[in-house]
C-alpha cells in the first residue's frame, strides 16, 4: 500500500518536473517560432491573426545575412579556440601550482568581470589602432576575450580542481608525455568543463554588439550588428526569426563540437 503510494508520488513529481520544463523552456521557444510565422499578433489574442513567411522573407532578403552568419561563426570559433588555448594552461597552473604572486595573477585574470567591458574596449581601441588591429577581425577576436576569458578560466579551474593531480601523475609514471596526458586523461575528464566553456564563450561572443561595433568599426559585420537595428522596427516576426537563428547557432555549434571531441577521445583511448 505504502509502496504503491510512494510510486504514485514519484510519478507525480516527475510529471510536474516535465511540465515545468515545458513551461519554462519549450513553450517560450514554441511561441517565438509561432511568432516568426505570424502576421499580426497583438495582446490579448491567444493566437496570431494569420500565418505567413513574410518575416523570414525579410530576413533572407538582407544581402549581408549569410556573410554576417559566417563572420559571426568564424569570430565565435576563434574566440572559443583562443579561450581554450589560454584558459586551460592558466587554470591548470592556478589549480596545481603554488607560486609567489598567485593571488595577484588571479585578480588580474578575473578583473575584466569587475570593470565594464565597454570601458576597456574604449581604452583598447587606441592601442589596437596603433597596432593596425582596429576595424579588423583579429582586433574583434581580441576584444571578445575581455568578457569571455575570466569565465573560461573560472570554469576550467573548477574542472582541474575537481579532477585533482593524482590521475595526471599516474599517467606520467605510466609513460605518457604532456600531449598524450592531455588527450587521454585531462580531455575526457574535463569534458563537462570544456563543454561549458565552449557554450558560454560562444554565446557571449555571439551576443556582443558594442564591443564588435567599437573595434570592428562597421567593417566586421556580425549577426548582432545586423539584428539590433530591426528592434527599432515594428515587425515582430523578423525579430522572432532572428532570435531563432541566434538560438540555433550555439546549439548547432555545441552539437558538432561534442561529436568531434568524442571522436578524438575514442580514438586516443582505444585499447
Amino acid at each position: 500500500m505504502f509502496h504503491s503510494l510512494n510510486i504514485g508520488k514519484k510519478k507525480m513529481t516527475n510529471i510536474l518536473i516535465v511540465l515545468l520544463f515545458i513551461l519554462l523552456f519549450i513553450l517560450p521557444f514554441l511561441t517565438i517560432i509561432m511568432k516568426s510565422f505570424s502576421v499580426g499578433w497583438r495582446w490579448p489574442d491567444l493566437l496570431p491573426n494569420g500565418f505567413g513567411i513574410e518575416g523570414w522573407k525579410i530576413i533572407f532578403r538582407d544581402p549581408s545575412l549569410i556573410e554576417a552568419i559566417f563572420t559571426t561563426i568564424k569570430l565565435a570559433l576563434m574566440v572559443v579556440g583562443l579561450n581554450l588555448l589560454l584558459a586551460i594552461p592558466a587554470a591548470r597552473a592556478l589549480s596545481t601550482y603554488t607560486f609567489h604572486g598567485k593571488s595577484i595573477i588571479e585578480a588580474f585574470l578575473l578583473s575584466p568581470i569587475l570593470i565594464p567591458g565597454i570601458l576597456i574596449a574604449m581604452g583598447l581601441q587606441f592601442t589596437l589602432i596603433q597596432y593596425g588591429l582596429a576595424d579588423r577581425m583579429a582586433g574583434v577576436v581580441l576584444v571578445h576575450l575581455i568578457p569571455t576569458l575570466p569565465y573560461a578560466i573560472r570554469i576550467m579551474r573548477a574542472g582541474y580542481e575537481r579532477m585533482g593531480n593524482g590521475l595526471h601523475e599516474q599517467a606520467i609514471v605510466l609513460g605518457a608525455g604532456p600531449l598524450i596526458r592531455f588527450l587521454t586523461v585531462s580531455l575526457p575528464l574535463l569534458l563537462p568543463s570544456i563543454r561549458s566553456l565552449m557554450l558560454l564563450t560562444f554565446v557571449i561572443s555571439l551576443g556582443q554588439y558594442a564591443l564588435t561595433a567599437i573595434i570592428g568599426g562597421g567593417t566586421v559585420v556580425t549577426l548582432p550588428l545586423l539584428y539590433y537595428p530591426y528592434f527599432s522596427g515594428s515587425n515582430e516576426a523578423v525579430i522572432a526569426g532572428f532570435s531563432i537563428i541566434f538560438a540555433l547557432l550555439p546549439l548547432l555549434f555545441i552539437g558538432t563540437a561534442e561529436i568531434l571531441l568524442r571522436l578524438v577521445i575514442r580514438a586516443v583511448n582505444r585499447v
Partner: protein
Amino acid sequence: MNQLLQCNTLKKNYSQTTILNDVTFSLEKGEHFTVVGPSGCGKTTLLRCLAGLEVIDGGDIILNGKSLVTAKPEDRSVVLMFQDALLFPHLTVIENVTYGLKRRKTSKKDRIRQAEEMLEKVKLTRWNNAYPHELSGGQKQRVSLARALVLKPDLLLLDEPFSSLDATLRESLRGEVRELLRQENISSLFITHDRDEAIEMADRLAVMDNGEFIQIGLPYEVVTNPSSIESAMIIGEGMALEEGFIPLNKVSAVNENEMIEPNFISIPGKVTAITVKNNQPCYRVSWEKGTVLVTSRTQLHQGESVYLKAGRGTIKNYINQEKHRRQIQ
C-alpha cells in the same frame, strides 16, 4: 646479484624545510627493499623523487648504471603505485591495464595478450570490460598492480598501496603481491608506516626518521636489534628504553605486589586489553612510551596496575647513531 639502484646523498627541501637529508642506499636486482617510518618522515617524497615527480635538490639516482637526475619521469623504467588505485575512471579495466603498454608502442595484439595474462595473474579475468566504479577497493588495487606489473619495470615503487583496505584484505593482498613480484622478477621499493607490513614485504629493511635512514638491515636483525631508540620505537619488537632495547620475548607482566628480584628491571604499566595469542592469554600493557603485548605467569585483569619485568642482562645497547649512519653510507 647485480646492483640495480644506487641513491647517493639525496637531498630534497620544501622552502626552508629539509625533507630528505643525504639519503644513501642501494638496491640489488630482484631485491625487495622496504622503508618504514612514521607519517611525514619523507618516505613518499623519496618515492616521488625516484619516480621523477619531484626534482631533487642534491645527490644522484643511478639506475642500471645511468643517472636519472635529468631523465624525464615518463622515460624512466620505474613505475609508482600510489596509495589510491588511481584507475582512469573513463577507461575499462583492460584499457587501464594496456594504457602504459600503448605508450611504449607495444602492438595492439601483444598489449591485449599481455594485459589478459596479467589480469589472470591478479585473478580478475572476468572483469576486462568493467569500469573502475564497478570494482571493489581490493579489485581496484589489483588492477592498479596489473597495470604496473604488465610494463615489467626495472623497479616498482609501492607507496602504501594497501593502506585504504581492511585488515584481512590487506594481509592477503600483500602476500599475493610479494609472490607476483617474485614470479615476474621485478625489484621493488615498498614504503609503509605499518611495522608488520614492512617486515613481511622486505628482503631488506630501512628505518626512516626525519628524512634520514637511521638503520638498514635484514628485517629480523632490525626488529630484534634496533640501532637507536628512534629505530626501536619505529620498528623494534620490544621495549625501547633510554639505556637500550629489550626484545619482547624477554618481557613479562607481573602483579604490582609481586617481589621483583634485584637482577630484573621493573617498569610500571597498566593492562589495557586482554587477548589470546598462540593459545595463551596475552595482556596489552601500556607504559610510559607505548604499549606492549606480553604474557604473565599470574592472571591479570583489565585496568590493573602491573610491572613489566625483564632481566637486566637482556637489555641490548644501541649502536651509536652517528657511527651507525656512517656505516650505512
